């Protein structure tokens, strides 16, 4: 008899292990707040706030290829004023000059087309880096346009403009709205979070007695709901799956697609569910959306009713960013069909690995599935030798391995 509950618990313990630790969390908060203080003290009136997985509470240790890889934490540095007060290059230069004029930041600084990366390598065993994206408030004109198009106009007020470098190294503005997206996510996540709040507080408190004297000291940002765990499981499985593909780095789905689609799907699900009930539902729904590959939009709507997370009007993939109606998260899918094709193949594999295999496979087989899904280093780190068979798997040497043939 397979203990499915125990297997689910073990998957969760891997994900908990890959999540940002409270120590690292406090360190990162301290660092980004210090950066904000420094910028303001040096005369650049700016607000620094988290975006992406750090804002959503869905961080996972990133690289499947390098187990000691550091966490990438994303922040917006929103300078006072709107985009009408600067050219994109002026805004970027202002932030760059400020960062370079302080030795602490200058020595840790890496610069690319969109952001400034500050690396903190020596915090505990695993380091983190802070990606700072300069921004200014979006213009009223653009905001009005977005409000008219948006299904949730109340989110638009926080829209920002970001200097983006094109191929010719010329900067232009692009619109984004990470605060709005976080607000949207937090509202959907709230009932899931309150359902697991007590258990989460107990867990964090038990695991971090040296850090907190009472439950009240635990920041809410460290609690994880079923929704956040589902996103983390899928991100981690995605990292490991795409790391095995030759073209994985080119076609890996962006985290925003996982965050937004999973959240939209979860919106109408019972918030008192377990992580794996929600995961099962999400993966079933994503499998249905995969039908868009084979049938027309009209046939899809007739067959599957009102499902709008993914759509394909005129054959073009569309996943709306709820906080920015002009942002199609699936833009790249329409330039490279490998991306949607592989995305839905991955969903099929994830469903097999995370749902059906838990019931069907014996312990040794389950161990192999865990190592394929979450990486052998992580599985060994958090589960030791659990589920390992008596014999260790034989290593096949690539250079001399047999290759399938067909004489006909």
């Amino acid at each position, binding site marked *: 008899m397979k203990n499915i509950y125990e297997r689910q618990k073990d998957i969760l313990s891997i994900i908990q292990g890959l999540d940002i630790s409270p120590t690292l969390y406090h360190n990162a908060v301290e660092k980004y707040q210090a950066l904000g203080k420094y910028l303001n003290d040096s005369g650049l009136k700016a607000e620094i706030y988290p975006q992406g997985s750090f804002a959503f509470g869905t961080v996972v240790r990133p690289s499947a290829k390098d187990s000691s890889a550091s966490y990438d934490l994303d922040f917006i540095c929103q300078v006072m004023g709107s985009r009408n007060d600067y050219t994109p290059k002026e805004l970027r230069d202002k932030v760059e000059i400020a960062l370079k004029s302080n030795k602490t930041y200058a020595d840790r600084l890496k610069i690319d087309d969109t952001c400034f990366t500050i690396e903190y390598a020596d915090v505990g065993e695993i380091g983190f880096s802070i990606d700072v994206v300069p921004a200014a408030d979006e213009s009223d004109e653009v905001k009005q346009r977005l409000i008219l198009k948006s299904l949730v106009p109340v989110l638009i007020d926080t829209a920002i403009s970001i200097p983006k470098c094109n191929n010719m190294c010329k900067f232009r503005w692009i619109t984004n709205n990470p605060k709005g997206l976080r607000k949207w996510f937090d509202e959907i996540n709230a009932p899931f979070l309150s359902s697991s709040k007590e258990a989460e507080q107990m867990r964090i408190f038990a695991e971090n007695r040296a850090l907190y004297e009472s439950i009240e000291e635990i920041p809410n940002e460290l609690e994880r709901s079923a929704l956040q765990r589902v996103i983390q499981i899928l991100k981690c499985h995605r990292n490991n799956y795409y790391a095995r593909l030759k073209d994985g780095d080119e076609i890996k789905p962006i985290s925003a697609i996982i965050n937004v689609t999973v959240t939209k799907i979860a919106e109408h699900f019972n918030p008192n569910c377990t992580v794996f009930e929600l995961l099962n539902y999400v993966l079933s729904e994503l499998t249905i959306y995969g039908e868009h590959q084979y049938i027309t939009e009209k046939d899809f709507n007739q067959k599957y009713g009102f499902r709008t997370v993914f759509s394909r009007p005129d054959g073009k993939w569309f996943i709306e960013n709820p906080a920015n109606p002009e942002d199609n998260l699936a833009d790249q899918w329409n330039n490279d069909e490998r991306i949607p094709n592989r995305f839905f193949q991955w969903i099929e594999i994830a469903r097999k690995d995370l749902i059906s295999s838990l019931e069907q496979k014996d312990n040794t087989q389950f161990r192999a*599935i865990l190592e*394929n899904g979450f990486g052998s280093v992580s599985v060994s780190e958090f589960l030791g030798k659990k589920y390992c068979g008596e014999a260790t798997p034989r290593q096949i040497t690539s250079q001399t391995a047999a*290759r399938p043939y067909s004489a006909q």
Partner: protein
Amino acid sequence: MIFTKEMAHQQIAELLEVQSGLHIEAESETQIELTGDIFINCKSKGFFLSENYPVQIVIPLNSNELPYVIDNENRIAKDYPHRYDNGKLCLETETSIRIRFFDSFSLVEWIREFVETYYFSYEFFQRYGEFPFGERGHGVQGIVETYQELFHEKDPIKVFALMKAICEHPYRGHSLCPCGSNQKLRLCHGPIVMKYYMDNRLNKIVQADYKNIYDYLVNCYEQLRYREKAK
């Protein structure tokens, strides 16, 4: 390579010690059939496989034919390109298998190196859409590729010239290398190909493949001529 009944039984006994899910299903004067599950537990390229596969293994007796595996419960997808319609698995080129076991055949090693790796490649392909170690070209192309690897020579024309020389001449290290490099054989491909000249068993394998490739090329040439005439 030819199995007598006694040799086959001895090797089957060794095999059943490591693959206890198999049993002898049928036996005649010409072949022994094993059926049951083989357990595969291996890893490569970050992928782990731990799985049982139902198979039928046929071991021909008193024949030069190699043992083969039939996917008797259709575990391999029908559209997988390396499975024949009758369920027989295309493990590798016969050349690779025969050369690997040219001095003595081992059923245990054959399962380990060819059958297990076949299923590993299959599962990797189903999951990632890529072959972990590549795949052989079909027909003659796959045989030529095998010799390209064995002779450490990328150019298929040079490979064919080397095969021809191995079949038609004795080894002479001071002669010019058949690859056309203008170097002496012993300073060029000689050290790699010498064993195919010297060992009668290896030489026979090359002879058979050379004849196949030659016949195939002649046939292609005649078809081309026929088409030209028809124009």
